[in-house]
């Protein structure tokens, strides 16, 4: 019963209106971060290793906003977290070799 009430509260018009305001705020955040990436990497023409750090950091922040708020991953069911954890593990395995190579080159002075 308590769960049923919680579900109803989640779907109340007030709650949905509040969600809409959050979506608009997230959009503004994404727009600002896009401007920041372009400004730093294209406007300032940063050296590649600094550009990689800035671009990847900002892309992760933007990805968090999209996945967390638009895809509602901040309040999802455990089964979805389980699916994603498994996916992240296999992607990490895929990326490990190339990233290690990249980091070695950075240490040796990548262009």
């Amino acid at each position, binding site marked *: 019963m308590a769960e049923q009430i919680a579900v109803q509260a989640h*779907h109340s*018009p007030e709650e*949905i209106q509040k*969600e*809409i305001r959050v*979506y*608009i705020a*997230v*959009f503004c955040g*994404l*727009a600002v971060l*896009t401007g920041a*990436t*372009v400004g730093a*990497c*294209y406007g300032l*023409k940063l050296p*590649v290793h600094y*550009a*990689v750090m800035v*671009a*990847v950091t*900002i*892309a992760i922040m*933007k*990805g968090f906003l*999209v*996945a967390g708020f*638009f*895809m509602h991953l901040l309040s999802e*069911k*455990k*089964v*979805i977290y389980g*699916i*994603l954890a*498994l*996916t992240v593990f*296999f*992607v990490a395995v*895929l*990326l490990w*070799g*190339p*990233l290690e*190579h*990249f980091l070695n*080159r950075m240490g040796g002075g*990548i*262009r």
Partner: protein
Amino acid sequence: MPDTHTAHALELEIPYTVGHRADTGLYNGKLGIWLFLASEVMLFGALFSSLILLRTSAPLWPRGWEELNVPLATVNTMVLIISSVTVVLAWANLRLGNFARGRLFIAATLVCGLAFMVIKGFEYAHKFELHHYPSTNNFFATYFLLTGLHGLHVVGGMVVFLYFLTFGSRMWHRDRDRFTNRIEIVGLYWHFVDLVWIFLFPTLYLL
């Protein structure tokens, strides 16, 4: 007591199209789309992995902004971000019971998808004018492969939005919750397409 025809129809009905499963707490479609998205993460993950390996192994690799049109790609990034907002607004309005506004936002998402593809078309046309093809070098091979595959995903999403804007919208009058769930599902797919672009844009154009 239901007659034979009704009983048969009930037997054929797919369970959990709206209600949540007891084991997962999700309706079937949502669990399905997340499993599909997991496979998509692996697909793009493999391609990103290949790109990193090719780039770090190459003796020479151009900076993205030397070869590609950054202002045009920035506009495209904003178009996709706007489309992500319009699709969540469509879903929110359908949950509020406002079908007209929900459809308007679905149409806006479709227009954004179209705008993205038109801009991408201009970009490709300019590359072909300069005789830059996938066979030119590894840089353009990865550029055309990644943006081309991403573009196909955009087109796939547009087809689904077009369906829900036209024939598929009849479902709203029969089963509102199910229609709303379907928009949530296509929305999740669309956000994933946006998410891929968020990583593609700096990787290809800015680094």
